[in-house]
Every structure is written in structure tokens, then in C-alpha cells.
């Protein structure tokens, strides 16, 4: 029963990582930029939700958080990414590292040592059935993630908007030649990345943690190994990578009594070890198609 509980816990956590990781992948596909500021964008959106929920109610605060996160993505694209679009992936990646430091410094200044609740209505309630325990927060995360990820995949696969984004990801020059508006595609990638991060942030900070803390961005950065394991440019890979990272964390922390020889808190390291192992085996990730984007 312990294994079943850990699997459920790992998978539901993995879906939250998948949501963050998809945002990361969408930005990478749309603009060839590894967004190392993704974690702090997530904290920014969640910070807005946590700051406003007592005034606006959870729904209003969530909408505001999503909006701020989306706009921050759009601004990053307009101010820092479009002007450097002809520079290499490495240059834009380094810019996002800088942005991450700036944003994290400001958020740390505002958050301090506080633990801010997002006011999510499900709180820390837990459902139990036949020995299986599932926090309501995780159940909501599961439903919302499946809806968002499924909806996104359908749009990506079956609409002209999705086709335009896929064309741009594969060959921006030819995509623009057939009519894809590259600026619009990159804007929407950054906006979507922001939206997914804010939603994931709310779930990440309701369970198991009690609320938003400065360290939340370190948890959010786990979406990075998830994306790399999946292959950086594959949406399906981001989901698989997210689930693997969630499972590895949950299983390692659940069986910590047997893994004591590895030291305390090994669950935070496990996803990174998994990432290195996958890269050694498949340098472009499990589902990455193009060796061009090897890490």
C-alpha cells in the first residue's frame, strides 16, 4: 500500500512538473531559448495570487496571478528576446539566467522569511479510499493539469495556430515564408509559458508545502530536468519527463528509510541524477527529435 500511495503521490506531483515543463518546452520550441527564469516567473505569478487572495478572493487572485505571469512572459520576449533573436540560443539562455537573478532578488526582498498562503479553497484536505490517500489539492492539480495539457495538445495538433507553432519550431525561416508571424508565435509561447507556470505554482505551494516561500523557485526549477529528460523540444516528452521526475522524488523520499546510506534529502537530488543518466544514454532526451538541440 505504501508503494501505491507513493505512485499516486508521484504521478500527481509529476503532472504539476509536467505543466511547468510544458511551458518551458513551448518557449524553447517557439523561440529556441532555454528559459532559466521559468522558476522565478512561477514564483512571481504565485506571489500575486498569494498577495491578492484576501482582497479579491481566490478566483480573482488566480486570474490576476495568471495575468501578471503572462504579461511578464510577454515583456521578457519583447524587451530581451526579440532584439536578440539573431543571436544564438546560448546568448538568450544567459540573458534568462540574468533575469532569473534579478527577479529572484526582488521576490526574495518582498517575501523575506514569510510563508504566504495562496488561499486555495481546497486547503490541506485529504481524501482516503481503500487505504489510498490523496490530498484534494493534488486531485485538483491532476484534473486541471490533464485538462490544460490535453487542451494544449489538441490545439497544437489540430488547429492552424498549432500548425503555425509547430512549423516555427521546426524551421522558422520556412514557417515565415508560408505566412507564420514569428513575433506572434514567440509572444504566445512566452505568454503560455507564463500562464502554465502560474497555475502550476498555485498547486505547488498548497501541498505538501504550506505556502509560497523563497525556496519555491528551487522546486520549480525541477521542471528543467523534466524538460531535458523529455527532450526539450517535445511536448509529449515534457509530460513524460515531468511524471518521471515526480515519481523519482516521491519514491526516493517514500523509501528514504531504506536509502539512508545515500544521505538525507536525497529526493531533491534524484531528478538531477535521473537527468544525467538519461542524457548519457540519449543525448537528446527520451523524445527529442533533433540532435541539433543536444545539451
Amino acid at each position, binding site marked *: 500500500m505504501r508503494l501505491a500511495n507513493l505512485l499516486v503521490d508521484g504521478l500527481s506531483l509529476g503532472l504539476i512538473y509536467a505543466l511547468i515543463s510544458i511551458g518551458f518546452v513551448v518557449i524553447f520550441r517557439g523561440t529556441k531559448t532555454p528559459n532559466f527564469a521559468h522558476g522565478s516567473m512561477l514564483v512571481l505569478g504565485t506571489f500575486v495570487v498569494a498577495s491578492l487572495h484576501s482582497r479579491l478572493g481566490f478566483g480573482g487572485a488566480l486570474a490576476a496571478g495568471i495575468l501578471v505571469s503572462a504579461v511578464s512572459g510577454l515583456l521578457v520576449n519583447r524587451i530581451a528576446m526579440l532584439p536578440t533573436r*539573431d543571436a544564438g540560443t546560448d546568448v538568450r539562455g544567459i540573458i534568462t539566467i540574468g533575469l532569473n537573478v534579478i527577479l529572484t532578488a526582488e521576490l526574495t526582498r518582498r517575501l523575506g522569511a514569510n510563508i504566504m498562503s495562496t488561499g486555495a479553497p481546497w486547503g490541506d484536505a485529504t481524501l482516503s479510499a481503500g487505504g489510498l490517500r490523496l490530498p484534494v489539492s493534488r486531485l485538483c492539480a491532476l484534473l486541471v493539469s490533464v485538462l490544460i495539457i490535453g487542451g494544449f495538445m489538441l490545439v497544437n495538433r489540430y488547429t*492552424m495556430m498549432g*500548425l*503555425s507553432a*509547430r*512549423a516555427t519550431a*521546426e*524551421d*522558422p*525561416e*520556412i*514557417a*515565415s*515564408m*508560408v*505566412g*507564420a*508571424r*514569428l513575433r506572434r508565435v514567440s509572444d504566445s509561447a512566452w505568454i503560455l509559458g507564463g500562464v502554465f507556470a502560474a497555475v502550476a505554482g498555485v498547486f505547488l505551494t498548497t501541498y505538501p508545502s504550506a505556502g509560497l516561500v523563497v525556496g519555491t523557485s528551487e522546486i520549480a526549477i525541477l521542471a528543467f530536468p523534466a524538460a531535458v529528460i523529455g527532450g526539450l523540444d517535445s511536448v509529449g516528452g515534457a509530460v513524460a519527463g515531468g511524471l518521471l521526475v515526480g515519481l523519482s522524488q516521491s519514491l526516493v523520499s517514500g523509501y528514504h528509510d531504506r536509502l539512508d546510506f545515500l544521505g538525507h534529502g536525497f529526493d531533491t537530488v534524484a531528478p538531477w541524477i535521473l537527468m544525467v543518466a538519461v542524457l548519457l544514454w540519449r543525448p537528446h532526451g527520451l523524445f527529442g*527529435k533533433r540532435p541539433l538541440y543536444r545539451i
Partner: protein
Amino acid sequence: MGGLLELTDITVRYGADIHPVRDLTMSVQEGGTVALVGSNGAGKTTLLRALSGTLRFHRGTVSAGGVTLAGDRIDRLDPAEIVRRGIAHVPEGRRIFKEMTVEENLLVGSLALGARKDRRTLLDEMLDLFPVLRKKRRTGAALLSGGEQQMLAIGRSLMSRPRLLMLDEPSLGLAPTAISMVGDVIARIAERGTTVLLAEQNIALARRLATQVLVLRLGRVEWRGAPGEMDDSGVVRDLYLGGTGREREAEAGS
């Protein structure tokens, strides 16, 4: 003048001082098929990139001169806008989207049409024009043969309902039967009233399809005329046997 497409004193620059196209002036009349011939490095590909607005992807710019399509300046527009104005570009090497199916490749070609409902009708028309693609419409585009990929690249461009279709070396790397099929298709497209600008090293193909031939050399138009006049001019001999304009000038002077 007053052609569909007018280029006036176009100069293209890559980097600081590489000018693959210099002071080039030419005109493409509506309904005609103009062939640009010339050896590697003559500036054919660069010229087509300048027209479709894709020089930026190769760190190039149009540094002087202007281009008009039906009287409107287009040389400062971005590629997505240019295709909306009616110029479609089939690039060298086909460059189909290999991660998509045949049908998706065609559909993506209609992005320039915006939110139109007749996309499916257009797709059907295209599959009629290329029966070989109809059979493989759900197949991954990467699995097509070279000739089929060229058909797909042409079909993708036609999905934007262009007024001017530009093709860059459509015969490159294809087997002779495939070249003749590609030729048939281009002839059919021209018959339907689409203006064609064809950059081609294959003189036989260029001659078969063109109503006008321009010979490019080092970024300039070295000769222009009807395909039938090519033999007398000696231009074909110069292109293939390594003769140069300077030698001819010397001959003329002696």
C-alpha cells in the same frame, strides 16, 4: 515597364562587404514564366531570398534599390506579409516540414489566407494536382522520395494562392523522370495563370518552361532574351564551357 514584379537597382549585402547581387534591375510580367539561370554563386538564390523577405535568416539585407509587386513597395516587409501580398517561395532543397504529415505540410501553406473556410477545398484541389500526394496524405513527409518532396514543397506554396510563384532549383538532386514531372507541374501552374519566377541551373528545363530568360553572373544580369535566342547568343556555351563576359569583350574588340 509596369510588370507584376519590378526590381530597380537592387543590391544585396551579406556582412560588411559581400554583395552577391549588385544594381540589378528586372521585371516580371503577369502571366509569364521568367527563368533565372546562372552558375553557383551567380546570385539566384540570394535574389529570391530578397524577394521573399528571408535574407535576414542569412544575415543579409537589401542595401539599395527597391522592389514593387503590382505597384506596392515590398522590400521592407517581413516574409509573412510578403506571402500575404501574393509571393510564394519554394526554397532550394525543398525544406518540407519533416515532422508533419503530407496533409499538414499543405495546410500550413495556407496560413497566409487567414481564417478562411475554403481551406479544405483548396487542399482537395492540391491533392488533385498532385495525385501522388493524395495517396500519401497521412504519411510523414520525411518518408517521401525526393521528387515527391519537391511536389509537396510546390503544393505547400500554392496553398497561399500566390500571384507569383518563385522556385529555387526545383530540379536539384532529382532523377530525370522526376525532373520531367516537376517540369510538367510547373507548366500546368503557369497555364492556370500563376506568374512563375524560376531559378534553375538546368538549362533544358529553364528553356522548356520560360517565356523569358535572364542569365545572372556575379550578381548582375548578363544577358536577357527569349529562350529561342539563347543558342545564337552563345550564352549557353559561356555558362557551361567557362567563357566569361570579359573574354567576349576582348573578342569583340579584336
